[in-house]
């Protein structure tokens, strides 16, 4: 079964790299550069995993996470958050808000692949 991944990341080159890696690993990847198109993307098809950058323009990763957890349709949806080192306080807040996993930038491609496989239980 193909895992559907929704990636919300504002850095186009990181987006492109992750999309490439996960697609090669058999995922169906949808990318967004901020949170505004999320509801629309969800309507088209519920993903199996959301990969969320913590620092996003406009609505932050934390706000998007809170929104997902507040909605019964997505409150159990696995969420992996991309963070930079030194954001300890934000990480604690994200943990409390119910994030499933953190991936610290700069990450290795193997780590991303392994984490996605784990979270989508393939």
């Amino acid at each position: 079964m193909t895992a559907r991944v929704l990636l919300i990341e504002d850095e186009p080159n990181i987006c492109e790299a992750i999309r490439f890696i996960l697609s090669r690993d058999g995922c169906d990847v949808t990318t967004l550069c901020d949170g505004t198109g999320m509801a629309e993307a969800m309507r088209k098809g519920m993903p199996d995993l959301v990969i969320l950058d913590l620092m996003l323009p406009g609505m932050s990763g934390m706000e998007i996470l809170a929104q997902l957890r507040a909605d019964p349709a997505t409150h159990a949806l696995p969420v992996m958050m991309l963070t930079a080192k030194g954001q300890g306080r934000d990480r604690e807040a994200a943990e409390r808000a119910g994030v499933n996993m953190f991936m610290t930038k700069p990450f290795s491609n193997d780590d991303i692949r392994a984490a996605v496989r784990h979270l989508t239980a393939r």
Partner: protein
Amino acid sequence: MPQSSAAPLIGSLIRERRLAMDLRQGDLAERVGISASYLNLIEHNRRRIGGDVLARIAQVLQVDPALLAQGAGGALVDDLRAAAATSGTAGRQAELDRIEDFVGRFPGWAAVTAATQQRVGQLERVVAALNDRLAHDPHLSASLHEVLSAVSSVRSTAGILAETEDIDPDWRLRFHRNLHQDSERLASGAEALVAYLDGTDRPGDIALAAPQEEVEAWLAERGWHLAEVEAPGGRARITAEVAALASVAARKLAQTVVDQAVQEASLLPDARLRALMDAQGDDPALVARAAGVSVISVMRRMALQPGSPFGLVICDASGTTLFRKPVEGFALPRFGAACPLWPLFTALGRPMMPVTALVETAGRAPRLFRAQAISETRLPLGFAGPELREAAMLLSALDVVPPKAAVTPVGSSCRICPRLDCPARREPSIMTDAG
């Protein structure tokens, strides 16, 4: 001859001890091997004394030389106590009961330890300020984020290019282009970081000392007076000195002090102040009435005169000290809150009510001071604004207790105060057995 500011009390202690032993001045001088007139000068604190002569006098008087030297080492001892308080490691408590012994036997090491303690305090503040800057500086965090993003992209993209053998030529081209872009971003991000950390474009706003301390050090260096403000051209020199202070905050504080001195000197010039003090017997309230200015303003003028023997502490309504001019023997805490028994705080609670008290400092060689304190209020924004309160305490050393006078015991700060049973105690003292 003015008293030696470094050792004002050794002489009095020697005299006290000699009289207690019923020794004549001539006898003591002979046994020590100095002339009686020299000893007389020493006993009246008109000659600096130390080393050999002190040791021989102490031997004849059968006292620890360090005890005699404490008159000079009071501030040093306080710093050492603070050092012991802040660095008390488990199982290795400093020998507080032998602190005078330490100062007496190893004055050099004691000074080094005290200086280290001060330095630690300064560095702790710098670290806190730098930490604040790292945590809250938007420029730095933006630069770091930019670099981290570029590095993430480079790492991942380079990994793809290295690991994917069958990569489509179009994708390969794309990833090469991305790598190139990101390396450019990395270069400019790194440059921005280096420029930031180099700090050449930033004024030095992190000084080693707290701004208030920096201003106090500056005033101490110039003998606690700004008399030049009354001389033609004098202001220019002071302005140059203020501009040379290390931190922006200190320059601002110092400028406030200078502006106030200028204003107060114009209302009560030096010559008039001296004449009024002669006529009114050093009573700041009487001088203030005669001059038509506020009492606190007179206290400040009295304390900031060239060669003034007065110490002065000014605080705001929260009890935070705004100004400290030390006087030998009365320890003003460098960090943390002061002794709540100071008449300063009594006055703070009763605006415009004069408080006068004889206070005795804590320690093995207690000193006596006359404290005059008063609190005044201001309405800088008129009836609509807050009432701001300021209290000032003028301190002058006394040699003898006037008959029938009540003496209030006070301290410096709870942590290093030996009055263990003090009803005003806020926190335990580290002075367990050094009373």
